[in-house]
Structures are given as C-alpha cells and as structure tokens.
C-alpha cells in the first residue's frame, strides 16, 4: 500500500478515492487550469461567440479563450452562491447538466455522456472542485507527435525548473485543442484524428493550458528523391534543395543571364537594366559584383530606404496633415542610412531609440510596445492587450509588463525626468516593466537609468535573435515577393517558416555579414533559389519556391521603371486602387502624354536605328530586357516603320502584362 496522509484524508471523503486506494494508486489530484479549463476551451464554451464574449451568455461569463483561469474558476465555483456545482451529487451540477444538454442551454449539448471530458468534470467536482493541484504538479511542457493516424498531445507536470526527466508525462489528447496549418494537406479532428488529404507540408498544432506545441508533417508531391545535379555549394541552396527533395519537387532551371539581370536591377535599383548594362552582365554574369556595383548607387539607397520605411511603417509620401513632414524626414533619414552603409541592427537601434520611425509619435505605451514587437521582433503581441494570446504564448500580464518598458518619462520634480510608469487599467496598480520572455537568462527588465538603451539592447539581443530572424525574413520577402514567414510580422510557434532551414541559413549569413544589407543581399541573390525560372502558373512549385512566382510592380516601382526606360519621369503617378490604375494606364495621360511629348528614348531609338528590325530589337531590350521573339517580330515590325506607330508600340510594351510584373 502506498498512500500519503493527504491522499488518505481525501479518501475519507468519497468512494472515488476509496476505489483508487483499492487499486493501489494515489488518488488523482486535480488542477482547474489543467483539467477543467481545457475542456471549456475545447468545447468552445470560452469562445467569443459563447460565454467568452464581452458580456458572457445567459449570465455566465468566462474569460475569452480561457485566458483568466482564476476568474473562470470564480465564475464556476463561487458565483450564484456556488450553485453551478453540486459537490455532493456532481452529476446534478448545473455546469454538467447544461453541458450534457439536460437543461435548456443555448449552446446545446456540448459533452457526450460518459466521455472522458464528462468523467473528468464529475471527478473534479467529486474531489471538491479544487483550484490547484500544488506547485509540484504544475504544467511545465507540451509535446505533440503523430502516431499512426492520430495526433497525440503529451503534457509534462512537475515542480518549477524540473527537467524533462523529472516531469510526469500525461496524455492530454482528450482535452487538448488541435489544429492544422493547412487542412488541404492534413486536417485534424477535435479528437486528434488525422485526415490526410493532399500533398504538401503542414504543421499540426496542439494547445493545452497556455502552452502550444507543433509537429511538421510532409506529404510529398512525388516520391522523394534527391534532385539531379551536383550538391549545392550555397548554404541557402542546400536548405532549399533539401526542402524540395523532401516534398518530391524538382527545382526549376536557372534563368538565362538577361532575365536574371532584369530581376537584379528591379530588386536592387527599382528599374530594368539599360541595354548597355544588359550587355555587360551578359558578358560577365557575376551577381556578387553586380550587387556590389549597384549598392553604391544613389538609386539603391532610394529603393531600399523606401523598403525600410515600409518595414518601419512610416506613412507614405502622399500622407497629409502633421504626420506628413515627420514621415518625409523619416523617409529621408532611412535613405541616408542606406547610403551611408549603416547595418540593419544600427538602423533598428535608431528605431528602438525613437530617432526614426513611429515610436516617439505613438502616445500610448501599449501601442509603442506593439509597434516594437511588429517591426523589430516580427511578433504580433496585440491580442494579448485584452486577453492571453489564443495561438501564441503571450499572456496579458506579459503584454502589460512589456508595455511598461515604453512608458513616457515623467518629471522628477527637480527639473529633470525619471522613468515613466504604466498602471494596469483594470487593477489600477503600477506595472513593473519586464521584457518579453523570449530567451532564458539575461536581464528580465530595463534598469532605471537608461531605459531606452536597455530596451533597445533587449530588442536587438542575440540571445533570442528575434530581430535577425525578422530582418532576414523581411529582406527575403522584399526580394522574393513573399516571406518564409507570412505574414512577415507574425513569427510564432504556430506559424512556422515555410522552410526553417532556409531561414536559419539566412540568419547565419546575416551574422557573418554583421547585418549589413549589401552582404545579406549578396548572399540571397547569388543563390540558385533566386535565379530559379518563373512559374508558368500557380501551383505547388511556386508555393514551395521551387520556381519564382510572378508579382506586380508596386506603383512607385512602376513609375521609377517607366522613367528609367523612357528617359523622362511621368507627370502623374498611378492611383492605388486596381481598377483606377488600369483605367489610368489605358486612358490616362501618364503614358500617352509622356510618349506623345517626344524627346524620349523611344524617339531616340526610332531616330538612331536604321531599320524597323533594329528599332524593334532596341525597344524590346530597353523595355523588356530581351530581344523580341520571332512571332513578335512578325507581328510588330511593321509598326516600327513610322514614328507614331512606334510610339504606340512603346505604349503597348509599357502598359503590357510583362513590363508590369517581375517574373
């Protein structure tokens, strides 16, 4: 017989415990947060549409997604004079009767009678509806794995600081919440049953308590086989090829020199190459040398300064009102920073210190914390402003403590300032500033002397490396048109990168190059992944980066490209909305007036070339960075014989599908 005094005293209270003694097992010790709350979460009781709504339902209010276990315990165990529970006859408890649908319940029947969740509720009530099991039996870890056709969630319980070996592991699949990142690949039922559907990769996620765990599943498009050709020497390509091999996808062939040059120039300086630059690259297609050459130009600073402005959410050039001047200053400062060759961490530090960007213009400390989270850490913590994050680890208390780091300095009474304070809007108490718990070790919060510097140090710390991962993903997104993590400001366990290996390779390169933009761009642009041929249509190859997906040039890049190709800047910019943009291209003055005014490279081409054929080749090389195909020569050469027709031809190229996209 093996029982403790505690278990003995419990055993005196009910038959359940007596039964456990007879079976020579210690009676189960219940914990509301780990045993009951997950049932409420899984059955949707604490969702926004049910008792988790702002006003609850039918007089019964739970915290949204079970974010406040103490409040939920109070609502169940003490409200209505404790009438929701009947400790002497658990099955007659209002909570159980409603959940079984035996009493009128707007949410209908939520629990099957006799199921694990039902039995757990009964046992918890019979055990006296305890709040906590004890400090030594708290939830410490969560793991999800796939066994056969089922996802299994296992939770580890133990005292604080207990390693895996000291934790008691329990299968919590019956009460954990399961989801999948892509139900078209594998769907997962509430009970963890997997439904394998299409090919691809997805992550199965389990949530239990405030912990989340994921596991990756791959269903190849074809039998996995190593791709042909020599092993990749580029670190990014090694990860890329391994990813594609696993998925059974073949990487697309490398594009020829001319389209590669077009990509490079559009990405680096926001315009196509001139025919001379095209020839030079064709003679010596050295990507690294081209990056080095272009990174020293003013147009590189303008293009990448604008990218950084978008990254740090600086309003665009068309902003109105008081914010316009500040936005213009910030945009100019970012262009200058790129022109000077400042590293990305140096630029980010300026943002963190409020020297550039929006940090100083947001009046609410919580807005500042969320801005820093999005732009510098690549993390959306905004949900946790109101409730614990439903698909990430962030708790409301952590959001509040992190926001306190950004509280405005206040007068110290002696003519100076002192660190600002933030008060919990609900409790009214002063909140101690604390960093987000991204990595163990290191300072937990800022000091009193130079809080901004301490916060900047935390944001850019290599201990968690969140900035480096965020920066690499953003740069990748600027170049490839999509991030490895999408949305780019939503790095979290439940939203893993498309290819974790590629992101790791980028982060390594980022650190090797001290976070310098040209070095990182050289690493990305010299990869075979960057030079992959374009997709002919949407499909898995484009989704998994086996080839390049075509993307539209943004309006400002389009205007820059037109100006470079025609030799004169258009008088008007394209409007933002899609239909208005196509109407403007079709009927507006942007292209028509620009070409009709004369004095353009189009007219120069017409005048300087001797034959219609030569004109056609030169126009195509200038606008599309390639020679015309035979069918195009056949169709369009007659229009190169007369000036106005030649201008119309130039218009057709500039407003056509190919020029408007980066392929």
């Amino acid at each position, binding site marked *: 017989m093996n029982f403790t005094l505690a278990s003995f005293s419990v055993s005196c209270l009910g038959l359940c415990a007596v039964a456990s003694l007879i079976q020579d097992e210690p009676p189960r010790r219940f914990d509301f947060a780990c045993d009951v709350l997950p049932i409420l979460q899984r059955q949707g009781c604490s969702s*926004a*549409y049910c008792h988790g*709504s*702002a006003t609850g339902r039918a007089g019964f209010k739970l915290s949204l997604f079970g974010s406040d276990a103490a409040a939920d315990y109070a609502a169940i165990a003490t409200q209505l004079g404790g009438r929701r529970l009947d400790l002497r006859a658990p099955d007659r408890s209002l909570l159980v009767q409603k959940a079984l649908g035996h009493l009128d319940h707007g949410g209908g029947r939520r629990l099957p009678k006799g199921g694990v969740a039902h039995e757990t509720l009964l046992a918890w009530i019979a055990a006296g509806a305890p709040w906590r099991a004890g400090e030594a039996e708290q939830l410490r870890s969560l793991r999800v794995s796939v066994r056969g056709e089922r996802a299994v969630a296992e939770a580890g319980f133990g005292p604080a600081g207990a390693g895996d070996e000291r934790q008691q592991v329990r299968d919590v699949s019956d009460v954990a919440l399961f989801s999948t990142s892509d139900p078209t690949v594998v769907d997962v039922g509430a009970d963890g049953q997997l439904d394998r559907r299409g090919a691809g990769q997805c992550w199965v996620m389990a949530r239990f308590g405030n912990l989340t765990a994921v596991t990756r599943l791959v269903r190849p498009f074809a039998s996995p086989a190593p791709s042909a050709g020599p092993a990749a020497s580029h670190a990014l390509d090694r990860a890329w090829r391994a990813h594609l091999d696993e998925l059974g996808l073949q990487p697309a062939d490398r594009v020829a020199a001319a389209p590669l040059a077009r990509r490079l120039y559009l990405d680096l300086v926001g315009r196509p190459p001139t025919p001379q630059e095209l020839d030079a690259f064709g003679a010596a297609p050295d990507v690294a040398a081209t990056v080095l050459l272009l990174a020293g130009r003013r147009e590189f600073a303008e293009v990448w300064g604008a990218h950084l402005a978008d990254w740090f959410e600086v309003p665009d050039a068309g902003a109105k009102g008081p914010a316009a001047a500040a936005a213009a200053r910030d945009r100019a400062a970012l262009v200058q920073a790129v022109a000077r060759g400042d590293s990305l961490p140096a630029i980010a530090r300026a943002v963190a210190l409020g020297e550039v960007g929006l940090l100083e213009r947001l009046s609410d400390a919580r807005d500042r914390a*969320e801005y820093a989270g999005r732009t510098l850490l690549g993390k*959306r913590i*905004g*949900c946790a*402003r109101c409730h614990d994050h439903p698909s990430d680890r962030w708790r409301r208390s952590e959001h509040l403590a992190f926001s306190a780091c950004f509280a405005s300095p206040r007068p110290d009474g002696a003519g100076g300032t002192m660190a600002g304070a933030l008060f919990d809007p609900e409790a009214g108490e002063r909140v101690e500033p604390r960093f987000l718990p991204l990595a163990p070790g290191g300072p937990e919060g800022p000091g009193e002397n130079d809080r901004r510097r301490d916060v900047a140090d935390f944001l850019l710390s290599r201990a968690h490396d969140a900035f480096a991962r965020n920066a690499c993903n953003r740069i990748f997104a600027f170049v490839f048109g999509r991030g490895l993590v999408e*949305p780019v400001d*939503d790095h979290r366990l439940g*939203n893993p990168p498309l290819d974790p290996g590629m992101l790791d390779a980028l982060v390594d390169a980022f650190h090797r190059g001290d976070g310098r933009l040209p070095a990182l761009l050289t690493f990305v642009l010299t990869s075979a992944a960057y030079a992959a041929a*374009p*997709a*002919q*249509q*949407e499909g898995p190859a*484009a989704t998994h980066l086996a080839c390049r*997906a*075509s*993307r*539209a040039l943004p309006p400002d890049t389009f205007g820059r490209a037109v100006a470079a190709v025609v030799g004169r800047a258009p008088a008007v910019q394209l*409007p933002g*909305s*899609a*239909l*208005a*943009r*196509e*109407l*403007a*291209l*079709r*009927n*507006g003055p942007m292209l*028509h007036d620009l070409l009709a005014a004369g004095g353009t490279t189009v007219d120069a081409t017409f005048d300087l070339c001797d034959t219609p054929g030569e004109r056609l080749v030169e126009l195509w090389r200038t606008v599309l960075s390639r020679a015309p*195909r035979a*069918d*195009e020569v056949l*169709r*369009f050469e007659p*229009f190169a014989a007369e000036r106005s*027709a030649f201008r*119309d*031809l130039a*218009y*057709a*190229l500039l*407003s*056509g*599908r*190919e020029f*408007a*996209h980066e*392929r």
Partner: protein
Amino acid sequence: MNLDRRSFLGGLAALPFAARSWAHAPLRRGRSLILVWLDGGFSHLDTFDCKPEASPEIRGDLGSMPAGDGAFVSAHLPLLAQRLDRCALLRSVTHGEGNHDRGSHLLLTGHRPSHVLVHPALGAVFGHDGDGVLPPYVAIPQAVDYARAGFLPGVCGPFEVGGDPGRPDFAVRDLTADAGGARAQQLRAALDALDGGPRGAAEAQRDAFVGMATRLSEDPAARRWFDLGAEPADLRARYGRHRLGQSCLLARRLVQGGVRTVFVNDPGWDHHQQIKTALGYGFPPKLQALDEALSALFDDLRAHELDDSVLVCLASEFGRTPRLNPLGGRDHWPRAQSVLLHGAGIRPGVVGSTDARGEEPAERPIAPAEVFATLVQALGIDRDLVLRTADGRPVRLVADEAEPVHEVLRA
C-alpha cells in the same frame, strides 16, 4: 442574395478571373446600399435630435422644428423634416469610441477596432457575385480608411471616382478612351496575347482589371452612369450644386446602373469650433447642403421606383458633445448619436430617444453592431455569414451575433 458562407472567400478569390458577360448594359438586380458618411461626426443635437427645451448652451442657436413622432429636427432641415415620415430615425445609437479612426471602424464594419485586424466594410462583402460591367462597390469621391476591403483581398475594395462632383468640370478620371488610341490598345492586346496568358494570380488579377477597364471604356452605356451631365439641370439643382448634392445624384445613377454599394463621403463635420457658422452659414451651409441632397435623393429614388430596393443610410463615427464648448463648437461624443435609414423595406418611425440633454440614450440603446446587422438584414445578406482572414481565421460578418433593430424592419 445567395452567399455560400463557407466558400465565401474562395468565391472572392475566383471573382476577378471569372468569365463575365459584358455584352449588355446590366439590369439592376437585388438591393443596393447608398451610405452617406458625414465624416468627422455630425452633431445629433443640431440635426435629428434637437432639444428645444434645453438650455442655450445645450440646444445651440440653430433652431428646431417638430417633425412628428416626438422628434425635433433642425430648422435648417425643412425638406428632410417633411420626409421624415418615410425614414427610420435611430436616435439612441451609443458606443464608447471617441476617436475618429476607432469610431469609424466601429460604425462602418460593425466591429470594435482590433489591434490585429481591420474588418471589411459592408461594400467589400456585398454584391460581388454579380456580372455587371460596373464595379460592385464605388466610393464618391474617395473612401475613408475603414470603408475598404479590410482583411479581405484588395479586389473587394471600392473603385474611387476621385475629383469633386460639385465642380462644373467634374468627370470621373480616365474613364473615357482616347479615340486616337485604338491602335495602341490593339497593340497592347496583341502583345499580351503573344505573351501566352497570365502566369499566376498576380497576372491573372491584372488581366481581370484590364478587362474591366476595357469594357468600361468601350461601353458608352455603362460609362454614362458616371456622367452627371446626362441629368436634367433642374434635377441637378434640386440636389444642390455642391459636392454632397452631386455626389448623391451620382450615387443614384450608379445604383440604377447596377452598382451594389455606393459610399458617399462628405468630409468636414468635425466642428470643434463655431459649429453654428459651419452648419448654418458656411459655404455652402452644411445643413442646407445635407437637406437638399438627401431630400432630393429620397424623391429621386421614388421617382425612379428604386426606393423599395435602395437602402440609404446616413451615419458618421459618433455624435457631438451636448454642451457647446468655449469656442462655440462641440467635441466628440460617442455616447449618443443619430442614424437615418430610408428605403429597401425599412419601416418608417422614430426608434429610441436620448435624455433631456442628449447625453445618453433614455430608451432603446442601440449598438453600432445592431445598426450594421440592420443593414445586413435589410440588404438580404446572411447574418450568419462567416468570413475568413488571409490566415484562415473565421470572423463573423456581424459582430457579437448582434440582432438587427427589428422595429425598423418589415416582417
């Protein structure tokens, strides 16, 4: 309206690329919405919820008149007062968002503003399953921030006509094809054809909009719906030769042509100072312009037999402080505001009231989500419609399962 709520987003994604029949001028089908947005927050106390018995610093100096059903409206709205018996006036709309952006998000989407999600306006959801030449959602002249697609794809956003419809030379920008440009367009089409078709979603979306632009440019009948010059001069005068009046007239033309949602944006209602001057004696006086524009719109819809199918909603982000401030203005006041509804089966009458000083609802408090649900119901949209964000998160169109204001809906 037949929206499959489960496949809504999938349908949207396919929308721009679906083959459409453009050969004929569209016939208007189903219900339409004209949302007249008085940007900045119009004063309920100086428009539709006057308090003639309150002290001068509450009631203001603009005067009021009885309009039946216990309502007092501004003396500067005589035409609307005569037509109030055809409208539903919600006088007790209330919420807690006193910031322009947050209030706009709440009124235009029915959802409280979120730190992580911008919800779509009704026009981005409603009527995109049609096959007309005209775009389903048009903003005159521009949409405000939260009258756009929100988390839905950009294709759901409004076509913004730009310009000022009140100007004599107003014309929707870039709508008319240059007769001399036919060859250029033929060459562009030939070049695109030799290119071998769109590669991926971005190019397909571009092709779809090129098609829309082409059809709109080449269809004089469709283009004509944007032409205010086609209206008789006396009718234009009845609407008022100002921005709001001509915008409302253009809205009537567009819903007649098949546009499902028209957002009419009238800025300049944020009167923190000298509200009496701005509303009563400006250039044009804001109330006179509103009176002319809206009353002419109601009459015109009836004359075109459209009042049973076109829902007109007049709203803004909040009301204004009951007590005049020292600058003679009124500040932001979300705890009480008025919303006016007309047509599309809306049952006329006054719903709710505010207390003697117009500070709080005295009876029948109405949340913005309930106003939104009322529009949804009146337009025949499934109130249980669930949208999906780009990352697959399900979001109900109607927040908090709000009930519509049943008093104004016909059974």
